[in-house]
């Protein structure tokens, strides 16, 4: 459950055999972005997942307009009301409007997901390229990454939150620490295989410097695997954020987030199932859409994996 996260992240990274395919098509993706975009638009799961994702992004941006009530206003007189025309998804034990909570909750989820994706990508590329380039650094960095991956993901996140205390920024940092090793290892193996390809060899023969080769020839090859990995990490971060919120160690309880609302719904499940039902549904659909996008990206950018049946 919690570690829904780990497994799929680990899976594509483990597919070292399929990496060459990823790299070839990545070079292709780097050169002909328009063509790649067209292929992506023809992929049904990318389109379906992308559209669903857009809905969430729109909800997050226009949360104030879409929500019908102030999400944080407590109205004890209206507590635990069933879904109705005034309260589309009912109210919780404090009389807060569940629809408005869910709409505003998408902000926390998307911010945490997006930020975690960006931080892990940045850190993962830096660590991966450094490790792939410098042997000695490689030994140390990869031992550290191995060590971090030895923790069950959600438990490490819980422990980091226990030390740092609740807060959006702390959640992002904790999840970035948890998920960076996977991206770093993927980037490292990408760099290691691209280094040996003919066009990089040719660039070296032409006398280009390490940094120049890394930026011009190697980094573009990392884009496709990074995009695929990033979309999955986005999904796991959203899920993990909700779990942390549910356990009471995520964003502070007064911030409307899906995990927090589900947790408050747990206490009143007998009288008001809707309080935990709807934010959970939003969480599921958000996760599903990101997984669809990730699967589609992988199939399009990495044709060899497409046939492996994953």
């Amino acid at each position: 459950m919690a570690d829904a996260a780990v497994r799929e992240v680990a899976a594509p990274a483990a597919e070292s055999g399929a990496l060459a395919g990823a790299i070839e098509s990545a070079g292709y993706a780097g050169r002909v972005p328009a063509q790649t975009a067209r292929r992506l638009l023809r992929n049904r799961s990318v389109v379906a997942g992308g559209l669903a994702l857009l809905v969430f992004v729109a909800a997050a941006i226009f949360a104030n307009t879409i929500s019908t009530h102030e999400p944080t206003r407590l109205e004890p007189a209206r507590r635990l009301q069933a879904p109705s025309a005034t309260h589309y998804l009912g109210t919780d034990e404090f009389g807060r409007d569940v629809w408005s909570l869910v709409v505003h909750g998408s902000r926390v989820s998307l911010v945490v997901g997006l930020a975690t994706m960006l931080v892990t990508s940045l850190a993962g590329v830096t660590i991966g390229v450094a490790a792939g380039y410098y042997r000695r650094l490689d030994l140390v960095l990869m031992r550290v990454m191995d060590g971090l991956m030895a923790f069950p993901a959600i438990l490490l996140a819980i422990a980091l939150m226990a030390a740092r205390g609740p807060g959006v920024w702390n959640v992002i940092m904790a999840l970035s620490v948890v998920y960076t090793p996977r991206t770093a290892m993927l980037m490292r193996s990408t760099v290691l295989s691209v280094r040996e390809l003919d066009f990089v060899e040719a660039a070296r023969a032409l006398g280009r410097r390490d940094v120049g080769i890394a930026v011009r020839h190697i980094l573009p090859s990392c884009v496709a695997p990074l995009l695929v990995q990033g979309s999955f990490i986005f999904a796991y971060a959203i899920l993990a954020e909700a779990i942390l919120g549910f356990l009471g160690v995520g964003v502070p309880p007064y911030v409307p987030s899906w995990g927090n609302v589900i947790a408050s719904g747990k206490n009143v499940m007998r009288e008001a199932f809707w309080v935990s039902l709807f934010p959970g549904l939003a969480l599921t659909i958000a996760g599903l859409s990101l997984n669809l996008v990730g699967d589609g990206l992988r199939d399009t950018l990495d044709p060899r994996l497409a046939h492996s049946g994953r």
Partner: protein
Amino acid sequence: MSAYFVRRLFAVIPVMAVVVTVVFLLIHLIPGDPVSVMLGPDASPAQVDATRRALGLDRPLHEQLLRFYARVIRGDLGQSYFLDRPVLTAIVERAEPTLVLTFSALLVAVLIGVPSGIVAAAHRGSPWDRVLMLGALLGVCIPGFWLSLNFIYLFAVRLGWLPAAGYTSILVDPVAAGRYMVLPALSLGFNQSALIARIARSCMLEALHQDYVRTARAKGLSQRAVVYGHAFRNALVPVVTVIGITMAILIGGAVVTEIVFNIPGLGRLIISAILRRDYPVVQGVVLVTAAAYVMINLTIDLLYAFIDPRIRYG
């Protein structure tokens, strides 16, 4: 053979060194003075000083780290302030429910996952395949803790078939223990069954494309004999590895499931320790879980090498 085993065993040392270091650093990630945070605002300066000395936090960082290593190697995970006993004792007391939950969920995951994957692969492209794989995709996306809540609402609150929460040891009352365990094991195992189904399907498809399968078909064997007699056994090896990984993952998931179902295991222990700022317990639970995770992975690797000779000579 033995060279591989020795190499693999030694590879555990740096990993555990990093794990112990990270766990050590946790206490230094606490903003401000960890001792004041731990003891709360009512503690006198003398108490704070005494605790700081007792924890060794007054010494230089590298010395603290070395002492921490030495303690962990001796099996001393410190003292719980709140529970007033050694952390290791507290963990051992709470390990049973977590282990029972993990193994029950593993059973659920395998019993649902492996047959689904095999059926989907054997009937590739059929409605069966589509339904099963859609289920697997949903299974990956549905948050386990939310699924647990829905299960409780449906099977305990509405239908009243099973208890909503709680735990009894198998040794005390096996029937009641089983009834308590059904919903937690189902909701924890369902997620992982989706993963196993996907992997089992792809391994099975790969096996079905091998030459020996074509030969088996060419000599006129039935689909059933080809799938179960030839392909299945070869597809099994990677699936066994995934099952091992699944078990490691389930330990993490069990923590969350325990909170939902009020099961007094390690998950409840760590969450209540966080609320009481009982950091040695937090550190201890994380360390023990990570160590278990490492040991499970080691066992899988060794087993895998044992089953498949290509690994140890590779």
